[in-house]
């Protein structure tokens, strides 16, 4: 058993850390204030091959594995989780095409996605409880030339900046989610409208919006995978996404621990740094432990993905763990910093919001816990 990253994985992480320090740290606060999509940074990320990390070399990707990928996401998230979130959402869309795309679809999109010329986005969620159910559910009706899509997708990340959306629609409203079908939709398709950007709590700069589909006509070749395979595709992608977002959470947690520890060392009360107070030590020790254990769980799940082994249960576990502990990490580190931690002048409030953004979205209720329970029952 080996718990150490390979030299290559370490260097890839180091490259992301250097990138974060150089390009993300200086803009993170501004990005949080303005919420403006950081186009220049995304172009820079593309130049460093971060947007094609998982894609094979034949299409212009770096051909690295998922364990390397989570190293990158953790390290980018230490400096700006919003930027990491843009990368995560792009990558998951690229991965959808890599895993399920037809040769034609791959040829059209993967080279552009690998180079970052086109950004990807996953349009999975709806305002209803489950995709395919509810009044606004996106429906796909079979047509002579292909499909006609009508309805809405909610909480679409990279909305408006993505060149290609992986869209999930029900091919049969009576069957709802069971008839979920994935489509590859070019952003320029007639009838696709990106709504007003949402004002989100955290991860500001990663655009989130509703997308409306009005008689969007797609050819048969736009179907990703097969008709009615959407639910299985969504489940697989979500599982992978949990692991990617766990890396985001661990990166934010790590940044918070380091900040709080540095604060505790500097802050002198009653003639001593607060770091020597037992209550403060306990809080810091607990958070550092949570972050460390989360990282191990995350790396374990990532390695399973990289090696093509079943990973869904481990992915659900790390998700469930971080939904519970992510916010606690932030409460604890904020408490270490007392009134200062609460001040918007300090980075913790931004980290707090970013962690909320990471664990709140994409968690359809008890889904991870169901997966875990099913595996042990």
């Amino acid at each position, binding site marked *: 058993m080996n718990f150490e990253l390979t030299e290559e994985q370490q260097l890839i992480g180091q490259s992301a850390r250097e990138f974060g320090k150089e390009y993300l740290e200086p803009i993170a606060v501004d990005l949080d204030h303005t919420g403006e999509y950081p186009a220049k940074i995304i172009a820079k990320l593309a130049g460093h091959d971060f947007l094609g990390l998982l894609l094979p070399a034949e299409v212009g990707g770096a051909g690295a594995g998922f364990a390397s990928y989570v190293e990158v996401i953790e390290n980018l998230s230490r400096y700006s989780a919003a930027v990491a979130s843009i990368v995560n959402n792009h990558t998951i869309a690229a991965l959808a095409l890599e895993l399920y795309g037809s040769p034609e679809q791959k040829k059209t999109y993967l080279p552009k996605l690998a180079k970052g010329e086109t950004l990807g986005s996953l349009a999975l969620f709806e305002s209803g409880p489950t995709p395919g159910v509810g009044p606004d559910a996106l429906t796909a009706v079979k047509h002579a030339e292909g499909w006609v899509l009508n309805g809405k997708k909610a909480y679409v990340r990279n909305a408006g900046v993505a060149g290609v959306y992986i869209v999930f629609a029900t091919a049969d409203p009576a069957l709802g989610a069971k008839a979920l079908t994935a489509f590859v939709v070019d952003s320029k398709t007639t009838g696709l409208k990106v709504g007003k950007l949402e004002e989100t709590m955290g991860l500001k700069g990663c655009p989130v919006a509703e997308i409306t589909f009005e008689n969007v006509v797609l050819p048969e070749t736009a179907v990703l995978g097969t008709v009615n395979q959407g639910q299985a595709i969504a489940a697989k992608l979500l599982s992978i996404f949990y692991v990617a977002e766990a890396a985001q959470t661990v990166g934010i947690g790590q940044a918070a621990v380091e900040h709080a520890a*540095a*604060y505790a060392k*500097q*802050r002198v009360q009653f003639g001593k740094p607060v770091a020597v107070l037992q209550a403060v030590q306990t809080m810091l020790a607990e958070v550092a432990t949570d972050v460390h254990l989360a990282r191990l769980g995350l790396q374990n799940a990532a390695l399973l993905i990289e090696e093509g082994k079943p990973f869904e249960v481990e992915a659900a576990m790390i998700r469930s763990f971080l939904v519970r502990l992510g916010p606690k990490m932030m409460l604890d580190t904020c408490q270490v910093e007392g009134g*200062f931690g609460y001040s918007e*002048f300090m980075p913790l409030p931004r980290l707090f919001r970013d962690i909320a953004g990471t664990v709140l979205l994409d968690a359809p209720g008890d889904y991870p816990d169901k997966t875990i329970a099913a595996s042990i029952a």
Partner: protein
Amino acid sequence: MAGIFIFSEDRALAAQLLTPALELKAALGEPLTVLALDAAQATELSTLGADKVLVVGDSATWIEGLGEPLAALVAHASVVLVGGTLRGKHLAADVAARLKTGMTTDAKAVRIAGGKLVATRILYAGLAVCDEELPLPAVVTIRARTFLAPTTTTAAAPIEQAVAKADARVTVESVTPTSTAGVDITAASRLIAVGRGFRAKDDLKLAEDLGKVLGAELACTRGIAEDEHWLPIERYIGISGQTVKPELYLAVGLSGQVQHMVGCRESKTIVAINNDERSPIFEAADYGIVGDLYEVLPLLTAALRK
């Protein structure tokens, strides 16, 4: 000929080197020879305690190219002290290599113990200090103002010519002095050092106004000089910039990274003004105000003017 040799192309620094050199002379009981760059320097240094002065070049000499001839001159030396300018450090390392001997860079103190030279210096950009123990002969560079020049004059030592030929492979095309303002901040007894807390060049006026009241010169961090170009390069304090020891070092809007502090940590009193209570500068300060410099500086200027 055993002995202690000193060399610096910087006149003031050469005089300062005589202070530790005279202590080494006393400890070792060996003669002290000054290697003077030119005749003028030779005359000036001849009355500060040396036994002999050798003129090795002239003001046009490319100092760095003197390694070979100087190594021959000091071939039997016990200790060679070289002024720690960049030119001096280059030359000293070259000489040490030719003598196949050890060298301490930027020693803060030197002494003889157990027949060896012990030099105190910093490591890890100032994070740590250590003693280096070198067998004799030893080469040491010492930066400006580490020691004060001797104050007592002696009878003039004999001056001899030993003019050396510099490495002819290197051609000096031009030398452009960089000191523009002509202010030597290392000589100032009070300094106000400014950092990134200032949002614009014009805002430095707040520090200038305070400087007028306090009688202090402006200094700065590397970022202010090298990235923003708000103040000339020779005003920046730090590991690769100036080292200062004023009576008062007032640090405004700078965080106090170790690379900066190593250049000012021997100041008598350090005062910090910064809006981030967590800044390491407060740990390094005798007095500090946590607050917005834009609010604090005008108030302080007004208060001190009264």
